[in-house]
C-alpha cells in the first residue's frame, strides 16, 4: 500500500510527521506518536533486527540527553506548575536542580528520536531509488546533485564489501583492533582507512571513465524511466495528512494540551 503511494505524498506525510512530533513536549503525546509509527512499521514489517542495530550505538547519547536536560532546564522554562517542581539538587546550596519537567523533556527527546528513526526507515524502505531521483527532479534539484546522490547510494554496498575485504586482509597480517586509548586505536585503524581511501580513488577514477564511456554529461537532462503521477489514493492520503495536522495544531495551540 504505502509502497505504491506517490513519492511526493510520502514526503509530505514525512514532513507532517516531523512537525507533529515537534508540536508536543508531553511524553504521553510522544508515546502516542511513537505507538502509531510503530504500528505503521509493523504493518509494512520492517526488519526488527535492523532497528535494534540502529538503536544500540545511540544509548550513551540517549542517557546523557536525559540527565543533562533533567538538570539544565530551568524551572521557569515550563508553563506547567507540576513541571517546575524541583526533585533534588545535584550540588549543595540549591544549585543545578533536577526538575520533573526536565526529565519529562528528556523522555520526550528520546521518544521523538525513536519515532523519527522508525518513520525515516519506513520512508526509505517503501521508496525506490528511482522514486527519490524523480522527487529531486520534480523539486528542481540540479541533475548533478541527484546523479551524485544516486551514484553514492548505489556504491555503498560496493564499498562496504571493500571494507570487509580490507579488514580481512589486515587481520591476516596479524592486525588487531581491540586496544583502547585514542592514539593507539587511531594507529591500529590507519591500515584500514588508508586502503579504503586508495580503493575509493581507484573506483572513482574508473567510474568516471565508465560514465563518460556511456555518454554521461552530453546533456544536462536524460530520459526519465518512469513518469510519476498522483493516483486517487494519493489525494485521499494528502487529505488525511492535512486533517491530522490541523487537528494537532488545534489541540496544541487552542487547548494548550501536550505542553509541559
Amino acid at each position, binding site marked *: 500500500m504505502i509502497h505504491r503511494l506517490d513519492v511526493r505524498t510520502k514526503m509530505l506525510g514525512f514532513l507532517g510527521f516531523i512537525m507533529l512530533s515537534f508540536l508536543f513536549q508531553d511524553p504521553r503525546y510522544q508515546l502516542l506518536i511513537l505507538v502509531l509509527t510503530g504500528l505503521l512499521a509493523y504493518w509494512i514489517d520492517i526488519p526488527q533486527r535492523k532497528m535494534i542495530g540502529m538503536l544500540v550505538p545511540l544509548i550513551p547519547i540517549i542517557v546523557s540527553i536525559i540527565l543533562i536536560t533533567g538538570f539544565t532546564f530551568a524551572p521557569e522554562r515550563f508553563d506547567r506548575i507540576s513541571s517546575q517542581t524541583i526533585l533534588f539538587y545535584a550540588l549543595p546550596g540549591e544549585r543545578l536542580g533536577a526538575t520533573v519537567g526536565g526529565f519529562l523533556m528528556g523522555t520526550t527527546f528520546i521518544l521523538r*528520536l525513536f519515532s523519527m528513526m522508525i518513520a525515516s526507515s519506513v520512508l526509505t524502505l517503501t521508496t525506490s531509488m528511482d522514486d527519490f531521483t524523480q522527487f529531486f527532479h520534480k523539486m528542481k534539484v540540479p541533475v548533478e546533485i541527484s546523479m551524485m546522490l544516486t551514484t553514492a547510494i548505489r556504491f*555503498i554496498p560496493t564499498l562496504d564489501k571493500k*571494507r570487509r575485504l580490507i579488514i580481512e586482509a589486515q587481520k591476516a597480517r596479524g592486525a588487531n583492533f581491540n586496544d583502547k586509548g585514542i592514539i593507539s586505536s587511531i594507529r591500529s585503524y590507519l591500515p584500514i582507512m588508508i586502503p579504503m581511501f586508495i580503493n575509493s580513488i581507484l573506483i572513482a577514477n574508473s567510474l568516471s571513465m565508465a560514465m563518460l564511456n556511456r555518454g*554521461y554529461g552530453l546533456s544536462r537532462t536524460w530520459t526519465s524511466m518512469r513518469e510519476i503521477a498522483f493516483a486517487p489514493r494519493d489525494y485521499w492520503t494528502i487529505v488525511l495528512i492535512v486533517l491530522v495536522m490541523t487537528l494537532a495544531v488545534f489541540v496544541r495551540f487552542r487547548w494548550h494540551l501536550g505542553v509541559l
Partner: protein
Amino acid sequence: MSNLNLEKEDLKISAWNVKRLSIMAIFIALSAVGALIKIPSPVGTIGMDSAPGFFCALAFGGVTGAVVIAFGHLVTSAVVGFPMTIPIHLYIAFQMALWALTYRWVNGKLGLIPAVIVAIILNGVVSAFAMFPIVGMGGALGLMPFLVVGAVINVIISAVAYKAIKGSRLI
C-alpha cells in the same frame, strides 16, 4: 564530424567535471561506510564518517571536501534514519562544510599541523556550542566530549592518510 563538433559545443558537463562528480559520489558513499567502522574510544565507539570529507578537502580541494562532508553527513544520518531530525542534520551538514573549507584553507596558509588543530577545535568545541540553541547549555557541554573525540580521530586519520597517499601518483 562537424555535427559532432557542435555536440562538443553544447556539451553540458565536461570530462573533468564528471571526474569531480564521481569522486564526490564515491567519497560520500565512503562516509556512509565509514560510519560503520567503529573505533573504540573512552566515550564509546566513534564512526569514521567525516574523515573522508576532510581527506577530500586536502586531496581534491576545499569545495569537493565541503560537498562530500556535508552530503556524507546527510546520507550517513539518513541511513540510520535522521536520529536528530532532518533540520538539525541540515544545520550540522552546513557547519561541517564550513569546517572542511577552513581545514583546506589553513593547510594552504600555515601547513598541515595547524590545520589539524584548527579543524579539531572547530569540529569539536565550536560545533558543540553551535548546538546551544537546540539542546541548551547542558546539551552542548554533554555533546562536547563525543564531538571532540570524534573530531580528533577523524581529522588526524584524514591528515595521516593524506600524507601517506600524496607520494603516489593517485592524487
